[in-house]
């Protein structure tokens, strides 16, 4: 305030000045308010379910809205299975892309082209992945399932995981590229001077140096996979029953937390049902938030060092 007076600002200008600063503060505060509001809404609306079902909700094996029985276990299994299968398949790809574009070929048109393609994968809307998967991937999977002698549903956990794999690779890959390029060149040059081969430099210098960062990228991919809704909803088959055999669990239809919300939210006709669905949303929210924050924290620590 003192400074402003010394600059001989007129009253009108001063008003503008303070108003502007207040708007900036208000908008940042609004952001905090949105997050607090999201959390509060989810908790308040899922209270009926939390009160009546308690923590047992999470491992209740039966989800049967008609007889008012709600258990989240089938969806937890479905969500974790699809996400982790997708994660495991995606890791070799995202690491390969990160190493290739970070170390082998960081410049030039070929690397630009590949990098843009990776970014494009992230840009395609998930509904289009789901639609394509439904009409192209499902028949392929069905033939594959006939060959390995499991029930040829076509749709199911495995199909969803494959589509998820494609969708989450860019997240780990593009972060990996940045991190691998940040490895100090004296470290690499030192190793080369000692007679290390490229493979040895990558394994003994680059990988250990970037390990935590690459792990953070995988976490971000996981967060993305857990919350992915549309593509999975279209491909997973939406069954709330748990299959009895291991093969059927992997290849048969299932349901994830996000897909059951997408399918049943507008159909939920009584409070108990609705609030059970919202509790699923609350669990999903908390899990993805924690995973994302851990990932971000690791990245911040990595880039500051």
């Amino acid at each position, binding site marked *: 305030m003192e400074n402003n007076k010394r600059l001989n600002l007129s009253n009108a200008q001063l008003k503008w000045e303070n108003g502007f*600063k207040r708007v900036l503060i208000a908008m940042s505060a609004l952001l905090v308010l949105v997050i607090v509001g999201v959390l509060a809404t989810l908790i308040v609306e899922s209270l009926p379910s939390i009160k009546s079902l308690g923590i047992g909700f999470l491992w209740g094996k039966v989800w049967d809205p008609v007889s008012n029985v709600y258990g989240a276990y089938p969806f937890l299994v479905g969500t974790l299975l699809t996400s982790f299968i997708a994660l495991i398949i995606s890791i070799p790809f995202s690491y*390969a892309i990160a190493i290739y574009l970070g170390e082998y070929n960081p410049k030039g048109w070929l690397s630009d082209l590949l990098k843009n393609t990776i970014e494009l994968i992230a840009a*395609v809307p998930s509904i*289009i992945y789901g639609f394509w998967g439904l009409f*192209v991937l499902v028949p392929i999977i069905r033939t594959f399932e006939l060959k390995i002698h499991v029930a040829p549903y076509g749709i199911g956990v495995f199909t969803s995981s494959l589509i998820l794999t494609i969708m989450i690779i860019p997240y780990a890959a593009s972060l990996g590229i940045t991190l691998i390029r940040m490895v100090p060149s004296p470290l690499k040059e030192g190793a080369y001077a000692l007679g290390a081969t490229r493979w040895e430099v990558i394994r003994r210098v680059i990988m250990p140096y970037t390990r935590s960062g690459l792990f953070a990228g995988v976490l971000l991919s996981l967060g993305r996979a857990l919350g992915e*809704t549309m593509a999975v909803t279209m491909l997973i088959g939406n069954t709330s029953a748990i299959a009895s055999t291991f093969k059927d669990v992997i290849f048969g239809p299932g349901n994830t937390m996000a897909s059951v919300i997408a399918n049943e939210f507008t159909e939920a006709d009584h409070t108990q049902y609705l609030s059970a669905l919202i509790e699923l949303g609350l669990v999903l929210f908390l899990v993805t938030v924690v995973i994302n924050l851990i990932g971000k924290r690791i990245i911040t620590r990595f880039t500051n060092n």
Partner: protein
Amino acid sequence: MIFKGVIVFFAFLMTVPLIIILVYIIKQGIFQVNWHFLTGVPAPVGEPGGGIANALLGSFLMVLMAAVVAIPVGMAAGIYLSENPKTKLAYYSGLCVDILQGVPSIVVGIVVYFWIVKPLGTFSAISGSIALAIMMLPIVIRSTEQTLKLLPDSLKEAALSLGVPYHRVIMKVIIPCGFAGILSGITLSVARVIGETAPLLFTAFGNPYLSASITKPMESLPHLIFTYATSPYDDWHNLAWGASFILLMFVLLLNIITKLLTRKWKVQL
């Protein structure tokens, strides 16, 4: 050598599914598109033809309204974060941006349902826009913040030393200098939300008729694709392929614009 081969193989194998998907969508969709397709509303089952004008209008209106809300709020918050990085509020809002970036879009849909749809008693375009605006915010904020941090301090100091008031320094010097970077964040956020379906399921819902009323349910491109793709009719599938083609073209175009803008400004989004 072998190792390099494996790396190159895996790295390039990833582009195969994308190319297959793009080619397939274009092949299926491009022949659906004609004047009638762009100006008509969906036909009932069994009738030939039909268009997606309702979804085009709906997507346009909802994204526009979302942008009108998200851009000023996001830019203001971004300016605050880059100007006062050390304050407590900046720490918490930075944290909230990180959280917001990771929130599953379906959760945003649920929350906006309770904030707007339930009090109003009906699904509405305005609630869809709010949901999309929430999805846009983190990208706009981060791009504003990153761009402004890249500008040299001397720029601001020079303007301040000439006696220019703070708000004018920001509005007339800092923002114009970082305009391309901020704009790239805006185009990227539009590209992101134009394909979002999950937040619209419980908010804008969908509408088979042409409607411009913001307090009524409204159709959008991704929601139309979802409804028609999961229907059992071939006519409707064709409509959905056409709509997917249009949506894909929008997204590609917006991403190319973003690329061109960020190439000039080394902004990392």
